């Protein structure tokens, strides 16, 4: 083979290749673009659909009650005496979710810190697996356990001692406890959200570069001080996100709460003590959806859905605002 034919071969090959390389047809690329665009568009479509469905379904109740739907405390579906006010359920939702957060967030972060910073891998690996397993347990399983087992423990070990000690003079601990109340609901909710918050928090903490920890150690920081000055600031926004994810679940959780909250109705559902029976927005919908005979009652339940939607949106927006105020560092140069 002489050099001339080699050169010809080369040019021939280039021609062939350039036809391929420069051709504009890249069907897979377009298909891929279409698929991801569709997937992204789907979320918008879904939101629009939900807004339409609940808006349409709740017009009847809003024209009947007006803004009183948000502030009213009566809830009566009896024909001729209809009154629907969501306020007790809004309060019930906030109180149970609040109890769940107060207990759940510190415990979750404690678990995450133990798993990522303190325990050796031979302990943290199986423990992390168990936690992820718990996060996957359906809430009705927690609900059954709470209803048949856990609530008796709560009554005997926590509620009765508290009631006997403080019940007479602190209204917060008033009302004879029997285990189906906002306190039980809050605790069981916290048990449900702890695996999720701690699993996410652990991932976040593990993603903190060791160089950050070493920077703190090298200044003579103890383990706790290292967490405080190097690790937590690094993941602050992420931990907030994890907590708000948990809050979102606690606010929207339905069946678990329905089983243990005692299902009070109307003004009785405004908790006056930790041991009050109550209801949340979601549990009222679950309780009454089947037996809503009139279209007004049905519309009222959908109206509760609207309130729930607004509440979760407000929580998310509030969380974002809080976050942007707390984390004031401009992105700058990252490693």
């Amino acid at each position, binding site marked *: 083979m002489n050099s001339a034919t080699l050169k010809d071969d080369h040019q021939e090959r280039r021609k062939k290749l350039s036809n391929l390389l420069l051709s504009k047809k890249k069907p897979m690329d377009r298909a891929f673009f279409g698929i991801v665009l569709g997937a992204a568009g789907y979320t918008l479509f879904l939101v629009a659909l939900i807004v339409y469905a609940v808006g349409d379904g709740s017009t009847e109740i809003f024209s009947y009650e007006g803004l009183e739907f948000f502030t009213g405390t009566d809830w009566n579906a009896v024909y001729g005496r209809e009154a629907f006010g969501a306020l007790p359920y809004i309060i019930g939702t906030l109180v149970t979710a609040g109890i769940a957060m107060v207990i759940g967030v510190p415990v979750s972060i404690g678990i995450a810190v133990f798993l990522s910073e303190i325990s*050796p*891998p031979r302990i943290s690996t199986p423990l992390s697996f168990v936690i992820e397993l718990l996060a996957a347990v359906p809430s009705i399983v927690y609900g059954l356990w709470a209803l048949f087992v856990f609530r008796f423990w709560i009554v005997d070990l926590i509620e009765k001692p508290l009631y006997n000690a403080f019940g007479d003079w602190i209204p917060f601990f008033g009302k004879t406890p029997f285990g189906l109340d906002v306190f039980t609901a809050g605790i069981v909710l916290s048990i449900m959200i702890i695996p999720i918050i701690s699993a996410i928090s652990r991932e976040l903490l593990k993603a903190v*570069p*060791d*160089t*950050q*920890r*070493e*920077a*703190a*150690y*090298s*200044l*003579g*920081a*103890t383990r706790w*001080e290292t967490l405080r*000055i*190097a690790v937590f*600031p*690094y993941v*602050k926004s992420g931990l907030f996100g994890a907590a708000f994810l948990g809050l979102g679940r606690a606010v929207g959780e339905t069946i678990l709460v329905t089983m243990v909250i005692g299902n009070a109705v109307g003004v009785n559902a405004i908790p006056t003590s930790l041991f009050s029976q109550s209801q949340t927005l979601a549990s009222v919908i679950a309780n009454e959806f089947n037996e809503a005979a009139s279209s007004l009652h049905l519309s009222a339940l959908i109206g509760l859905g609207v309130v729930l939607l607004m509440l979760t949106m407000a929580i998310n927006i509030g969380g974002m605002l809080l976050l942007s105020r707390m*984390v004031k*560092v*401009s*992105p*700058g*140069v*990252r*490693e």
Partner: protein
Amino acid sequence: MSRTLKGPEEELSPTLQVSKVSESVEIERPTEVKDIPPAKLSIRNLEAWFGTKRALKGINLDVRENSITAFIGPSGCGKTTLIRCLNRMHEMTPGASAKGQAILDGMDMYDAKVDPVTIKRRIGMVFQKPNPFPTMSIYDNVAAGLKLNGIKDKKLIDDIVRESLEGAVLWEEVKNELNKPGMGLSGGQQQRLCIARALAMQPEILLMDEPTSALDPIASSKIEELVHGMKKDLTVVIVTHNMQQAARVSDYTAFMYLGELIEYGDTKQIFENPRMELTERYISGKFG
């Protein structure tokens, strides 16, 4: 070859068998070196492990006061492990352990009674990659160690922050933006910020683990210059994979290979007239 791979113990004088902590051990060194500064940090039979893998095989070495000591050697030779043993940072890595002695002014930092946290307050460290605290301002980064250790006097902190930034040759560049985040600085500036952060603790020894490996040549030479200027106030130990850097910046050089200290001596002697064949081969670029 068999000769060059002998352990460092055999190469050192018999007086090495230390019994008392305060006893200073003479290390054999070239005759032309006359004024050897006193040992600031004496490393005796120091061994380090990662799990069951031995990374350091009995290191003996004296770090001289107010001088710059460089650790050189090919990748995996244990130079980074060694420097991380000198402030007990090594054992912070999960599974890692160390034993032996590292005697700082007569106190063995590996003594069971010594709290590793207090060691790190006396011995500063600068890392391969600049690692300022991302959520802190320039000022807070430098002040972090002081605040951590309970210093509240605002005036004192102000003064130390300024002094440290000047010591790290960063003050002129950042004096008008002390409240901006440290992460907004360039890589070289970030590394000097980390040096300032370490200097603010008024360390007696500064350990630098390849401090310029992530930086461009100009930023590197700035750091080299400032390291050179620091030795009047403190003792510097620097790990570098860059032999020219070791030759330029250090007074003493230790060459390590496969977890052993092969040769330790005056930098000039190590680079111009190494006693060990292995050192000579490494210096001249035949391996590593």
